[in-house]
């Protein structure tokens, strides 16, 4: 067991030296134990031999040899541990260096700064540094995968949200349609009820009409009989009127004869007067007679005229009576025909009423069935409406879940971004790079540089340089993300003290690049988070902060 001289080359990080020392120590310990065991065995054998009276010289030989072995081994062990003692300070120094490196590495690793952690791990043994670098690389890849996954989760959440919104819109439309259909069905049900009521009334009315038809038919039959009787009587009257007319014609003929006689008498009287005049004085008395005859003829004529007038009136009345009876007879015939037609119509009406009543009852029954079906449909639609409402609620929950998922993805992204990776997708790395470039640039061009850097991104809203006093000295606005909002001017913010801002205080305190939790920006009014890189002066003093605001709606473009 010798102390391996490779302890002096421990800085090379030989993985076998530690193991070698351990083996040697173990061997030494094992050797001591074997020798101790041998000594004990020898002693035991010696004791046994003494007790049994056997020769003790083997035992004594064994004991001596054992003791010699123990002594030799002891000398070796002593040499081993002296050499070990000589190497111990160097190892202690190396250990301290390793401890410091490891501490720094772990500190950076603990703060998520893998870049600095890898840099710090270079002070560790090669294998350790290599292993750490590999681990950091793996962790970086994991972080990036987490970022990618968070972006995918956010995209999926957005997609879910979009789908949920579309489904919610569709559900809303469906709900509205269901409401409309329900209202229409209820209206249909009301209409069906009204139709059923009307049909019932129609059936009742048709039944009444049927009964009325029976009464009407009987009445029509009586009317027909009455009209026929009237027709007979009118015929009788007409016959009598005809007879009277014939008699009046005879009377007219008599009157004509009398008139003619009166005319002849009149002429005779005139001729008598003529003869009387021709007779001269002797014809005077004859002239008187002629005058009398003439007057008689005139009176006859007047009487005939009177009688004729009376007869004309009588004949007029007879004619009127005949005309009236003829018209009455025609009217009676028409009434008879109309009565028969009415009887036929009533019979048809009765049949129609019967059919109407039957149909009305069928309609009533059908509408009642329709009513029941409508009620079932309304019930079903209400259930559908409830389902739609539940689905809408579910979609709202889904949307809320998607929002939470989105928020969770942002948290995960921020969590992943909490690692400082050597990647363009690492916000800390990006902002520290910007800070280094801007710090290296002259203050006069810092503004322009920041504007160029901001416009190159699709997710940064603002980038602003705040000095150690907390005052903004440069402000870059990304027109692509800020859009049509009122432009922010540096002049408006130069006098605003940022020292109390959480991100400023965190950067000033921890002297490392940090990412805030999402908050509402007082500059833009939007929800954003800020990546702020701490600036250090050459003397190590705090030199200010470069802050970059990232809108929470655009973080997936990182």
């Amino acid at each position, binding site marked *: 067991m010798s102390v391996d001289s490779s302890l002096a080359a421990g800085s090379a990080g030989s993985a076998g030296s530690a193991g070698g020392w351990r083996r040697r120590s173990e061997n030494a310990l094992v050797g001591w134990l074997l020798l101790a065991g041998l000594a004990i065995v020898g002693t035991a054998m010696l004791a046994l031999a003494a007790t049994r009276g056997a020769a003790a010289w083997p035992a004594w030989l064994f004991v001596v040899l054992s003791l010699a072995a123990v002594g030799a081994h002891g000398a070796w062990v002593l040499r081993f541990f002296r050499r070990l003692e000589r190497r111990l300070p160097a190892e202690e120094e190396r250990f301290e260096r390793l401890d410091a490196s490891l501490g720094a590495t772990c500190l950076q690793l603990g703060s998520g700064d893998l870049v600095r952690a890898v840099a710090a791990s270079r002070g560790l043994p090669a294998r350790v540094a290599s292993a750490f670098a590999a681990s950091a690389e793996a962790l970086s890849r994991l972080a990036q995968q987490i970022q990618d996954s968070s972006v995918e989760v956010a995209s999926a959440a957005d997609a879910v949200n979009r789908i949920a919104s579309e489904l919610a819109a569709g559900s809303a439309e469906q709900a509205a349609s269901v409401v409309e259909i329900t209202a229409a069905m209820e209206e249909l049900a009301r209409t069906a009820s009204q139709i059923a009521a009307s049909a019932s009334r129609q059936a009742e009315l048709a039944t009444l009409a049927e009964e009325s038809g029976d009464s009407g038919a009987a009445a029509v039959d009586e009317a027909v009989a009455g009209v026929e009787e009237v027709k007979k009587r009118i015929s009788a009257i007409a016959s009598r009127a005809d007879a009277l007319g014939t008699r009046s014609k005879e009377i007219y003929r008599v009157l004509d004869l009398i008139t003619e006689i009166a005319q002849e008498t*009149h002429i005779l009287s005139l001729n008598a007067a003529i003869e009387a005049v021709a007779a001269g004085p002797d014809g005077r008395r004859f002239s008187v007679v002629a005058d009398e005859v003439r007057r008689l003829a005139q009176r006859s004529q007047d009487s005939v005229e009177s009688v004729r007038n009376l007869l004309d009136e009588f004949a007029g009345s007879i004619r009127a009576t005949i005309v009236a009876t003829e018209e009455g007879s025609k009217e009676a015939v028409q009434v008879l025909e109309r009565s028969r037609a009415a009887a036929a119509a009533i019979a048809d009406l009765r049949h129609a009423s019967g059919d109407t009543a039957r149909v009305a009852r069928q309609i009533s029954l059908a509408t009642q069935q329709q009513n029941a079906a409508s009620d079932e449909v309304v019930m079903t639609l209400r259930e559908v409406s409830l389902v739609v409402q539940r689905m809408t609620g579910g979609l709202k929950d889904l949307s809320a879940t998607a929002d939470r998922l989105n928020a969770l993805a942002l948290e995960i992204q921020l969590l992943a971004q909490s690692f400082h990776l050597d990647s363009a997708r690492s916000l800390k790395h990006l902002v520290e790079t910007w800070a280094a470039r801007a710090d290296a640039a002259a203050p006069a061009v810092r503004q322009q540089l920041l504007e160029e850097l901001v416009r190159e991104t699709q997710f940064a809203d603002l980038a602003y340089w705040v000095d150690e006093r907390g005052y903004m000295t440069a402000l870059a606005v990304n027109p692509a993300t800020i859009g049509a909002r009122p432009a922010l001017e540096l002049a408006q913010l130069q006098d605003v003290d940022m020292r109390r801002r959480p991100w400023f205080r965190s950067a000033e305190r921890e002297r490392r690049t940090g990412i805030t939790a999402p908050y509402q920006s007082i500059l833009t009014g939007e929800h954003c988070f800020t990546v702020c890189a701490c600036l250090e002066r050459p003397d190590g003093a705090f030199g200010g902060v470069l802050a970059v605001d990232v809108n929470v709606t655009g973080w997936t473009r990182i």
Partner: protein
Amino acid sequence: MPASPPLNSPPAAPAEPPGRVEATHLLVRAGEYVCALPLGAVRQVLRSLPLHPLPGSAPELRGLAEFAGDPLPVLDLARLARAPQGANPTFPVTVVAWAGPPGARELVGLAADAALDVAYLPPAGIVPAAPGAAGTNPDGGLVAGDAWVGGQVVRVMNLEQLGQGS
């Protein structure tokens, strides 16, 4: 002894003055006029005689008839009196009268619509017919004048002018 007049009859006619006979006229209806014919010139009043038109005659000559075994020219009194056409007569008559100047009288028939009465037309009551243009008589002298009888105007005919040329 003359027969007593019947009851309700007018009193017996007084003694006729010598001119009353000539003033007595037969009233007949011709168209819408009432014409007066001197009763002394009237031979007889008959029911309208059957007429036989004479081709080529004037419209006033309605035709020829037979009266008492003699031919009788029958004139249309309404045309002679220039009377407007009246209603269809119910009892037309033919008045057979002496026409023409006193020395050349002939019997003619005058077709009238009705024989009305015998009336006394004093000459003073007859308004002579007004002469036409250039002094001629538009009626050919057949209308002696107009008289007022029983509330209506009567055309008094002059039969003496009948046989003379127009």
